[in-house]
Protein backbone atom coordinates (compact mmCIF):
# COMPACT_ATOMS: atom_id res chain seq x y z
CA UNK A 1 0.00 0.00 0.00
CA UNK A 2 1.31 3.46 -0.73
CA UNK A 3 1.74 6.08 1.93
CA UNK A 4 -1.00 8.19 0.41
CA UNK A 5 -3.45 5.27 0.30
CA UNK A 6 -2.67 4.46 3.92
CA UNK A 7 -3.27 8.03 5.05
CA UNK A 8 -6.47 8.38 3.02
CA UNK A 9 -7.73 5.12 4.49
CA UNK A 10 -7.00 6.37 8.01
CA UNK A 11 -8.87 9.62 7.42
CA UNK A 12 -11.75 7.68 5.98
CA UNK A 13 -12.09 5.22 8.83
CA UNK A 14 -11.63 7.87 11.51
CA UNK A 15 -14.17 10.28 10.03
CA UNK A 16 -16.32 10.10 13.15
CA UNK A 17 -13.58 11.59 15.32
CA UNK A 18 -12.98 15.36 15.55
CA UNK A 19 -10.89 16.44 12.62
CA UNK A 20 -8.09 18.12 14.58
CA UNK A 21 -7.51 14.98 16.64
CA UNK A 22 -7.45 12.81 13.52
CA UNK A 23 -5.04 15.15 11.77
CA UNK A 24 -2.62 15.10 14.68
CA UNK A 25 -2.55 11.31 14.85
CA UNK A 26 -2.34 10.81 11.09
CA UNK A 27 0.59 13.22 10.95
CA UNK A 28 2.27 11.20 13.68
CA UNK A 29 1.93 8.00 11.63
CA UNK A 30 2.98 9.72 8.44
CA UNK A 31 6.14 10.84 10.19
CA UNK A 32 6.78 7.24 11.30
CA UNK A 33 6.41 5.97 7.77
CA UNK A 34 8.70 8.65 6.37
CA UNK A 35 11.34 7.98 9.04
CA UNK A 36 11.37 4.29 8.16
CA UNK A 37 11.69 5.14 4.49
CA UNK A 38 14.64 7.33 5.33
CA UNK A 39 16.25 4.34 7.03
CA UNK A 40 16.12 2.52 3.76
CA UNK A 41 12.78 0.75 3.75
CA UNK A 42 10.67 0.99 0.64
CA UNK A 43 7.36 2.81 0.85
CA UNK A 44 5.45 -0.48 0.91
CA UNK A 45 7.68 -1.91 3.64
CA UNK A 46 7.47 1.24 5.72
CA UNK A 47 3.67 1.34 5.55
CA UNK A 48 3.48 -2.37 6.40
CA UNK A 49 5.84 -1.93 9.36
CA UNK A 50 3.59 0.65 10.94
CA UNK A 51 0.70 -1.84 10.96
CA UNK A 52 -2.39 -2.55 8.94
CA UNK A 53 -4.98 0.20 8.54
CA UNK A 54 -7.51 -1.66 10.67
CA UNK A 55 -4.98 -2.35 13.41
CA UNK A 56 -3.95 1.29 13.56
CA UNK A 57 -7.56 2.50 13.50
CA UNK A 58 -8.47 0.13 16.33
CA UNK A 59 -5.49 1.26 18.38
CA UNK A 60 -6.27 4.94 17.76
CA UNK A 61 -9.92 4.53 18.70
CA UNK A 62 -9.01 2.49 21.77
CA UNK A 63 -6.39 4.96 22.99
CA UNK A 64 -8.50 8.06 22.35
CA UNK A 65 -11.50 6.53 24.14
CA UNK A 66 -9.51 5.84 27.32
CA UNK A 67 -7.90 9.28 27.02
CA UNK A 68 -11.30 10.96 27.00
CA UNK A 69 -12.46 8.86 29.95
CA UNK A 70 -9.45 9.96 31.99
CA UNK A 71 -9.93 13.60 31.00
CA UNK A 72 -13.53 13.51 32.21
CA UNK A 73 -12.49 12.04 35.54
CA UNK A 74 -9.96 14.79 36.08
CA UNK A 75 -12.32 17.63 35.06
CA UNK A 76 -14.98 16.93 37.76
CA UNK A 77 -17.57 19.56 36.83
CA UNK A 78 -19.84 18.37 39.65
CA UNK A 79 -18.56 20.93 42.16
CA UNK A 80 -19.32 23.81 39.81
CA UNK A 81 -22.85 22.55 39.36
CA UNK A 82 -23.64 22.30 43.09
CA UNK A 83 -22.28 25.80 43.70
CA UNK A 84 -24.34 27.18 40.84
CA UNK A 85 -27.56 25.63 42.18
CA UNK A 86 -26.76 26.98 45.66
CA UNK A 87 -26.43 30.47 44.27
CA UNK A 88 -29.63 30.09 42.28
CA UNK A 89 -31.55 29.02 45.40
CA UNK A 90 -30.18 31.97 47.37
CA UNK A 91 -31.27 34.37 44.65
CA UNK A 92 -34.75 32.86 44.47
CA UNK A 93 -35.28 33.07 48.22
CA UNK A 94 -33.88 36.59 48.49
CA UNK A 95 -37.25 38.38 48.89
CA UNK A 96 -37.52 36.46 52.16
CA UNK A 97 -34.11 36.76 53.67
CA UNK A 98 -33.09 40.23 52.52
CA UNK A 99 -35.81 42.06 54.55
CA UNK A 100 -35.08 39.74 57.50
CA UNK A 101 -31.41 40.57 57.30
CA UNK A 102 -32.18 44.31 57.14
CA UNK A 103 -34.54 44.03 60.13
CA UNK A 104 -31.91 42.09 62.08
CA UNK A 105 -29.33 44.70 61.23
CA UNK A 106 -31.65 47.49 62.32
CA UNK A 107 -32.28 45.80 65.67
CA UNK A 108 -28.53 45.40 66.23
CA UNK A 109 -27.91 49.04 65.38
CA UNK A 110 -30.61 50.29 67.75
CA UNK A 111 -29.25 48.06 70.53
CA UNK A 112 -25.85 49.60 70.04
CA UNK A 113 -27.37 53.08 69.98
CA UNK A 114 -29.19 52.42 73.24
CA UNK A 115 -26.09 51.13 75.00
CA UNK A 116 -24.05 53.97 73.62
CA UNK A 117 -26.49 56.60 74.83
CA UNK A 118 -26.50 55.05 78.32
CA UNK A 119 -22.73 55.39 78.44
CA UNK A 120 -22.92 58.92 77.10
CA UNK A 121 -25.43 59.91 79.77
CA UNK A 122 -23.23 58.42 82.49
CA UNK A 123 -20.39 60.60 81.36
CA UNK A 124 -22.82 63.50 81.12
CA UNK A 125 -23.71 62.97 84.77
CA UNK A 126 -20.03 62.90 85.60
CA UNK A 127 -19.54 66.07 83.60
CA UNK A 128 -22.36 67.87 85.33
CA UNK A 129 -21.06 66.80 88.75
CA UNK A 130 -17.69 68.25 87.88
CA UNK A 131 -19.26 71.41 86.57
CA UNK A 132 -21.51 71.97 89.55
CA UNK A 133 -18.80 71.10 92.07
CA UNK A 134 -16.45 73.57 90.47
CA UNK A 135 -19.19 76.17 90.61
CA UNK A 136 -19.87 75.35 94.24
CA UNK A 137 -16.22 75.50 95.26
CA UNK A 138 -15.49 78.69 93.39
CA UNK A 139 -18.60 80.60 94.38
CA UNK A 140 -18.55 79.18 97.87
CA UNK A 141 -15.20 80.82 98.42
CA UNK A 142 -16.39 84.00 96.70
CA UNK A 143 -19.49 84.19 98.90
CA UNK A 144 -17.47 83.51 102.02
CA UNK A 145 -15.06 86.22 101.10
CA UNK A 146 -17.85 88.66 100.29
CA UNK A 147 -19.58 88.24 103.62
CA UNK A 148 -22.17 85.50 103.06
CA UNK A 149 -20.10 83.24 105.26
CA UNK A 150 -22.59 80.48 106.15
CA UNK A 151 -24.14 80.31 102.67
CA UNK A 152 -20.70 80.38 101.16
CA UNK A 153 -19.53 77.60 103.46
CA UNK A 154 -22.57 75.52 102.56
CA UNK A 155 -21.93 76.07 98.89
CA UNK A 156 -18.25 75.19 99.29
CA UNK A 157 -19.16 72.07 101.21
CA UNK A 158 -21.62 71.03 98.53
CA UNK A 159 -18.99 71.71 95.88
CA UNK A 160 -16.45 69.47 97.59
CA UNK A 161 -19.04 66.80 98.16
CA UNK A 162 -19.99 66.87 94.51
CA UNK A 163 -16.33 66.76 93.53
CA UNK A 164 -16.04 63.51 95.44
CA UNK A 165 -19.20 62.19 93.79
CA UNK A 166 -17.85 63.07 90.39
CA UNK A 167 -14.82 60.90 91.03
CA UNK A 168 -17.18 58.00 91.74
CA UNK A 169 -19.19 58.93 88.66
CA UNK A 170 -16.04 58.87 86.54
CA UNK A 171 -14.96 55.44 87.68
CA UNK A 172 -18.50 54.19 87.41
CA UNK A 173 -18.80 55.35 83.82
CA UNK A 174 -15.43 53.89 82.96
CA UNK A 175 -16.39 50.53 84.46
CA UNK A 176 -19.67 50.53 82.58
CA UNK A 177 -17.87 51.29 79.31
CA UNK A 178 -15.35 48.49 79.89
CA UNK A 179 -18.13 46.04 80.72
CA UNK A 180 -20.02 47.00 77.58
CA UNK A 181 -16.93 46.62 75.41
CA UNK A 182 -16.22 43.17 76.86
CA UNK A 183 -19.81 42.04 76.32
CA UNK A 184 -19.72 43.26 72.73
CA UNK A 185 -16.46 41.38 72.11
CA UNK A 186 -17.90 38.16 73.50
CA UNK A 187 -21.06 38.58 71.46
CA UNK A 188 -19.00 39.12 68.28
CA UNK A 189 -16.86 36.02 68.98
CA UNK A 190 -19.98 33.91 69.58
CA UNK A 191 -21.50 35.16 66.33
CA UNK A 192 -18.31 34.37 64.40
CA UNK A 193 -18.33 30.83 65.78
CA UNK A 194 -21.98 30.34 64.82
CA UNK A 195 -21.32 31.59 61.28
CA UNK A 196 -18.16 29.46 61.05
CA UNK A 197 -20.04 26.34 62.08
CA UNK A 198 -22.80 27.03 59.55
CA UNK A 199 -20.24 27.32 56.75
CA UNK A 200 -18.67 24.03 57.79
CA UNK A 201 -22.08 22.35 57.65
Amino acid sequence: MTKLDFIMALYDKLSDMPHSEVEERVNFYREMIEDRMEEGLSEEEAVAAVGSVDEVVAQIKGESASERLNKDKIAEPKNDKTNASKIALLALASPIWIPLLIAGGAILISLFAAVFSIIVSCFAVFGSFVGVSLYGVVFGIVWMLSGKAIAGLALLGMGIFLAGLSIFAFFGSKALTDLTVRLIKRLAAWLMRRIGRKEEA
Partner: protein
Amino acid sequence: MDNQLKRGLLDVCVLAAIKSEDSYGYKIIKDVKPYVELSESTLYTILKRLEAANMLIVHTAVHEGRLRKYYRITEEGLARLEEFRREWQEVLSIYQFVTKGESVNDKA
Protein backbone atom coordinates in the same frame (compact mmCIF):
# COMPACT_ATOMS: atom_id res chain seq x y z
CA MET B 1 5.18 -9.08 31.48
CA ASP B 2 2.24 -7.84 33.55
CA ASN B 3 0.39 -5.16 31.59
CA GLN B 4 0.07 -2.66 34.42
CA LEU B 5 3.75 -2.98 35.17
CA LYS B 6 4.63 -2.59 31.52
CA ARG B 7 2.55 0.60 31.18
CA GLY B 8 4.31 2.25 34.09
CA LEU B 9 7.69 1.23 32.74
CA LEU B 10 7.05 2.51 29.23
CA ASP B 11 6.64 6.09 30.46
CA VAL B 12 10.10 6.13 32.00
CA CYS B 13 11.53 4.28 28.99
CA VAL B 14 10.38 7.08 26.72
CA LEU B 15 11.76 9.68 29.11
CA ALA B 16 15.09 7.85 29.21
CA ALA B 17 15.18 7.80 25.41
CA ILE B 18 15.05 11.60 25.34
CA LYS B 19 17.15 12.13 28.43
CA SER B 20 20.51 12.95 26.93
CA GLU B 21 19.32 14.57 23.70
CA ASP B 22 16.15 15.55 21.87
CA SER B 23 14.65 12.67 19.96
CA TYR B 24 11.82 11.98 17.55
CA GLY B 25 9.10 9.35 17.32
CA TYR B 26 10.70 6.58 15.28
CA LYS B 27 14.07 6.94 16.98
CA ILE B 28 12.44 6.55 20.39
CA ILE B 29 10.80 3.30 19.27
CA LYS B 30 14.14 2.02 17.97
CA ASP B 31 16.00 2.95 21.16
CA VAL B 32 13.44 1.26 23.40
CA LYS B 33 12.94 -1.85 21.22
CA PRO B 34 15.79 -3.96 22.68
CA TYR B 35 14.15 -3.69 26.07
CA VAL B 36 10.41 -3.61 25.49
CA GLU B 37 8.03 -3.60 22.53
CA LEU B 38 6.56 -0.19 21.84
CA SER B 39 3.95 0.35 19.14
CA GLU B 40 3.35 3.67 17.39
CA SER B 41 -0.06 3.99 18.95
CA THR B 42 1.20 3.37 22.47
CA LEU B 43 4.05 5.81 21.94
CA TYR B 44 1.60 8.49 20.81
CA THR B 45 -0.45 8.13 23.96
CA ILE B 46 2.62 8.12 26.20
CA LEU B 47 4.03 11.23 24.53
CA LYS B 48 0.70 13.02 24.94
CA ARG B 49 0.49 12.02 28.60
CA LEU B 50 4.06 13.08 29.35
CA GLU B 51 3.45 16.40 27.63
CA ALA B 52 0.32 17.00 29.68
CA ALA B 53 2.33 16.28 32.82
CA ASN B 54 4.97 18.81 31.73
CA MET B 55 7.62 16.13 31.63
CA LEU B 56 8.54 16.87 28.04
CA ILE B 57 8.08 19.62 25.49
CA VAL B 58 7.51 19.30 21.76
CA HIS B 59 9.00 21.38 19.01
CA THR B 60 8.87 21.03 15.26
CA ALA B 61 11.87 21.30 12.99
CA VAL B 62 12.51 20.88 9.31
CA HIS B 63 14.34 17.71 8.38
CA GLU B 64 15.09 16.76 4.80
CA GLY B 65 12.33 18.92 3.41
CA ARG B 66 9.62 17.75 5.77
CA LEU B 67 8.46 18.63 9.25
CA ARG B 68 9.46 16.42 12.16
CA LYS B 69 8.41 16.67 15.78
CA TYR B 70 11.21 16.58 18.36
CA TYR B 71 10.68 15.83 22.04
CA ARG B 72 12.79 17.32 24.80
CA ILE B 73 12.81 16.28 28.46
CA THR B 74 12.03 18.86 31.16
CA GLU B 75 13.11 19.29 34.78
CA GLU B 76 9.97 17.44 35.87
CA GLY B 77 10.82 14.63 33.47
CA LEU B 78 14.33 14.33 34.90
CA ALA B 79 12.86 14.34 38.39
CA ARG B 80 10.55 11.48 37.43
CA LEU B 81 13.54 9.47 36.17
CA GLU B 82 15.36 10.11 39.43
CA GLU B 83 12.26 9.02 41.35
CA PHE B 84 12.12 5.83 39.28
CA ARG B 85 15.78 5.13 39.97
CA ARG B 86 15.26 5.49 43.72
CA GLU B 87 12.08 3.37 43.73
CA TRP B 88 13.77 0.55 41.88
CA GLN B 89 16.86 0.62 44.11
CA GLU B 90 14.43 -0.52 46.78
CA VAL B 91 12.90 -3.12 44.46
CA LEU B 92 16.37 -4.38 43.66
CA SER B 93 17.31 -4.89 47.29
CA ILE B 94 14.00 -6.65 47.93
CA TYR B 95 14.68 -8.87 44.91
CA GLN B 96 18.07 -9.73 46.31
CA PHE B 97 16.52 -10.58 49.65
CA VAL B 98 13.82 -12.75 48.05
CA THR B 99 16.28 -14.65 45.87
CA LYS B 100 19.02 -14.85 48.50
CA GLY B 101 20.91 -18.09 48.33
CA GLU B 102 18.95 -19.29 45.32
CA SER B 103 20.40 -19.62 41.89
CA VAL B 104 18.24 -18.77 38.90
CA ASN B 105 17.66 -22.47 38.18
CA ASP B 106 16.54 -23.45 41.68
CA LYS B 107 12.94 -24.59 41.83
CA ALA B 108 12.79 -24.93 45.62
